[in-house]
Structures are given as C-alpha cells and as structure tokens.
C-alpha cells in the first residue's frame, strides 16, 4: 500500500514574519524556510506506517518553486522513499494545490493521502478537505491517532470538548494534528542517503491543471502593536476593568 504525503515549504516557525513595505505580502527574501511542521508530522506517521509493515512505499510531493526540492530532501531524510516536485513559480492557493494533488493521486494510486491539517503560513486549513471532495474520498481531519487495518482507517480526531473516533474505508484523506507523534531527528547518515533517493520534477501543465488564483489579495498589514499592560491591585479591580473598560463581561 502506497502512502502519499503532500508537503509545503513555509517560512520557518522561528522567524519573526515581516510584512513587505508595499503591503503586497510578507518578506521572504533571505528568510529561513522549512517544512510545514504539521507536514513533518504527516511524513513521520507515514514512515512509521511503513516501518510497521502497513505501508509499502511513502511518496512525498510538494508544489511550488524549485527550492521546494530542499524540503523534499528533508522528507526523504526522515524516511520517505521517493519525491515528486510539481514545479511552478505561480502563487498557489489551496484549491489549485488540491487539483494538482488529485492529478498526482491519479498518477500514483495511493490508498492514503496524509496531509498536515494546515500550513502555518496562511493557516487556510482547506487543502486536505478540498482534495477529499475532488477525489470523492472519505476524509478524517485533525488526527491525533491513526490505525490502519483490514482495508479500514480508524482515526481519532481532536474536536472541541474531547476526542472523536471515526472509521472510514480506504482510500482516504487524513489530515494530522500536532499531537499525533513527535517527528524523529534527521540523522546525518540519513541526510547523506536522501541525496541518492529519486526526485522527479513535473509541471502543472503536464498534469493538465490550471493553477490560476481564484482569490485576489487586496492588502497585507501588520497586526496592531500590543500596548503595555497594567497591574491591578486585586481581583475585584480586575473584574471592574473587564466589565467597565474592556466591556468583555
């Protein structure tokens, strides 16, 4: 059974993101980029499925600029077998990515598409759901536990107020949450081995997908600066301020 793990290259979570002076987006020049942390968890889970003998091959795919190859190499160093890059300099929105992934699924024939629940750059939380809809596959989102057996997936999801367990048939789209696993360290020998693993590059045209954006970004602005806090003498003063100044209770 093949597992497909789509991964996204994003600004590293340690970087303090800055808005470009002209308000068209955020500054990415000379900024450290990394794999979206949720995707790293998805890769880890896929590799564990392979190590447990459930999956036979883990294929990672990224859509974006040529530099995404570096991110794919990291996934290969974690333990993925093979990588695909759908290379384009175009701005990619979740729907375009979901369409590209649908084409990749048709080409590769995986039983599971394992994605991060969202990317930490745009926080859209859409790609996995859109992919499931386009494919007509069941979806299990926000997974904190994944069990695959007898052609079925049993996925524990984090929902408001607790945990929910859903069972689906395969093939399935699963998106993963933070607490699913802790990704392993990438070891130096595996970094060296990853260099030799296959990485294939495709173009959106070859997949017959139109990636043109459907949404236009009007303006990107910094959040308002946080103002300094005040100290209150006791709980009563706090309640008073919350009620009469902030008007939140």
């Amino acid at each position, binding site marked *: 059974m093949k597992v497909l793990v789509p991964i996204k290259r994003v600004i590293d979570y340690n970087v303090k993101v800055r808005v470009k002076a002209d308000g068209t987006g955020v500054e990415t020049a000379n900024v450290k980029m990394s794999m979206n942390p949720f995707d790293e968890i998805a890769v880890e889970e896929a590799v564990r499925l392979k190590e447990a003998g459930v999956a036979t091959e883990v294929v990672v795919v990224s859509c974006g600029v040529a530099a995404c*190859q570096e991110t794919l190499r990291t996934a290969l*160093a974690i333990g993925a077998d093979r990588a695909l890059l759908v290379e384009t300099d175009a701005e990619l929105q979740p729907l375009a990515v979901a369409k590209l992934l649908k084409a990749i699924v048709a080409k590769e024939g995986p039983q599971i598409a394992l994605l991060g629940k969202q990317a930490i750059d745009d926080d859209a939380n859409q790609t996995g759901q859109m992919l499931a809809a386009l494919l007509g596959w069941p979806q299990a989102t926000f997974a904190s536990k994944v069990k695959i057996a007898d052609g079925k997936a049993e996925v524990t999801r984090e929902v408001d107020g607790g945990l929910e367990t859903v069972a689906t048939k395969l093939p399935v789209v699963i998106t993963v949450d933070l607490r699913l696993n802790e990704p392993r360290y990438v070891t*130096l020998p595996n970094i060296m081995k*990853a*260099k030799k693993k296959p990485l294939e590059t495709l173009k959106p045209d070859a997949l017959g997908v139109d990636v043109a954006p459907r949404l236009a970004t009007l303006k990107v602005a910094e959040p308002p600066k946080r103002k300094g806090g005040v100290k209150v003498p006791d709980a009563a003063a706090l309640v008073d301020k919350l009620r009469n100044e902030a008007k939140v209770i």
Partner: protein
Amino acid sequence: MADAVYTTPEHAQLRDTVARFLAEEVEPHGAAWEAQGFVPRAVIRALGRLGLLGITYPPEYGGAGADALTAVVFQEALARSTFGGFVITVLVHTDMASPHLAHAGSRPQLDRYLRRVIAGELVTAVAVTEPDAGSDVASIRTRARRDGDGWVLDGAKMFITNGVHGDLYFVAARTDAESRGARGISMFVVEKGTPGLRVGRALDKQGWRSSDTAELVFESCRIPAANLLGEENRGFYAIMRNFQTERIALAAMAVGHCQTALALTLDWVANRRAFGATLFDKQAIRQRLALLDAKVQAARAFLYHCAWLVTQERECVREVSALKALTGELANEVLYACQQFHGGMGYMRESAIERLVRDARVLAIGGGATEVMLEEVAKRLRT
C-alpha cells in the same frame, strides 16, 4: 547571514538537526552540567546515534564519510550553544582527540576502538600538554620506555579536556631518550583504568565549566606494544598534522559563539530602553554591533575557505594558523562588547552572555595561543 558558496542543502539539514538537539537536549540542561563539571555520557551517546561523532570517518565504522566542510558546518552549528563547556567536550572528542586514532590507527586499532568512538560509547581525550610544556610541544618530557612486550609510561600531563571522565587517551611521550626536540616523540593509546594512570586532580577553570579538565599522572604505566599509535618517533609530525583539524574546529567554535552572542545582544538592545528609546536606537551601539557583525561574517568566510582548502588537500598551515589567531581574538572582542551592551545583567551569572564571556577567553589560549599562531603565520609571510 547568507550561506557560503561551499555549502549544500545537506549542510542546511545538518544545521537543523544540530539546532534542534541544542534546543531540546542541551540548552535546558546545560546549567546543571556546569554545576557538576561535566557533560553526562548519555548526551554524547545521543549525538552518536544521530551520526554526528564520525562525520569525516569511514562508513564501515559507522562514520558519515563526509568532508571537512561538513565537519565545519557541524562544529559551527554546535557552537551556537551558549554552553562552551558542552561544545568543547564534543569537539575534543570528534576533532582533536579521535583524529589521532582515525588518521594513524592500524587496522586492529581501528577495529578495536573506532566504531565505539563514533557511537559515543568511548569518549576520547588527547594528552600532549604538560606542566612544563605547552606551546613548545617539542619540549615534552613524559617518557615511554620499551620493556619486553610493552611500553612503560612515566610523566605528567596538564589541562587535559575529557581527562577526568574520558575512556581513551591519546598520549604523546618521548620514545628516544637520546634525541631532543621534535624527533623522538611517539603517540600511544591508553585505556581508562590502566594501572599506573591516574587523574592527579580535576582542574577548576574560569570558563568551560561543564567540560572536565584533568591533570594526569603516569607512574610506571604499562601498556601493550600494540598500543603505539602510528610510527615510532614520528609522533610530533602526527600532532602537527592533527593540529590543523583541531584549530579549524576551535575557529568554528569561536565563530559560532560570536553569532550566538550577537543574536543575544541584538535581542537585548532591541528591548532595553534608556533615555527615551531602545538601546538599538543609539547609533553608537548599533554601529559597533554592525561592525562586529561584519568582522564575524568575514571570519566565517575565511573559516569556510580554510575548510575548503582542506578538502582540496592543499597545504594550509599559514591560513589555519591565521584563522585560529584571528577568531580566538575576535571571540573575545565580540564577547567583551556584547557583555558591555548587556549592562549590569551581562555581569550576572544568570545571563548566558556572562558565561560566554568566560568561555570565550580560552579560545585565544588553548589549542595554539594567539602569539604562537602568529609566529606560524609570520614565518610564512616572507616566502
């Protein structure tokens, strides 16, 4: 800081792995190691499991078979830690002591030790310096006398990093009593627990406090003939060769510490306010930091250039000596200024910058003091 032309995507991955290790396994625990005076062996073994203790060593022994540039990436990344004592514990093992084995070891010696050295199961130390011989290596007096099927060592060694808790010592001793100076010195492997080897004392240092440093005493210490490392009477030349590796590692350490110190200081001055603005708003401060950053970037480029020369197998004693002198001094210049801009907090034991100031001092002394390095450069300036 932009990458050097020599660095590859794999280098970036290696940096990420090391950075994560520091954040999770080192920085939260370093203060306890400083207090106890050594780094727990489990931490060294964890680095071994990540394949980080044998970067340039052969894969058949568990090494990564990578080049000197990859080693520098590792050293520099490790030295982004705020605990110099931790960094030197590792780098003495990987780049100052174990190269003696990897470069000169016979097949049986490699088979016996190298795999466990790379796994971090055997922590190594190198013992050259003596109470009366430091910079002037050729004047060492520890003696090794041939006796039947073995050697007998007598003498004392000083300032030996990993000396208290190490498992394997590479020891320089005089094997030809007749000769003086550079000729007649040989290297030996001595295992921990060999009768006649003892730790005279654990030394109390200004900095590098999580690194154990020993005075070692050899009293009729008998080791098998097979423990001679490399050629008899040619040990001085092996030491000089390994000094190149060692000095690049120390330079990488200096450059790593400088970058960490500047980052800590930029953070501090961006938030600390005085006279109606942040300290960063004061041109006197930010221009000093800008110039220091320029110097560190220049030193870093030189560091990678030296490592590249090594990968090309070029003669580079002049360059590496210059690099060691430059970076040892630069680390002190940078740390002095960074401490200054931290104000009183920079003088407090609770601040990382205070520790780095103490840790930086020895970078101009150990592994080739600045003056001695400059002599090596000067001798080669007029050829």
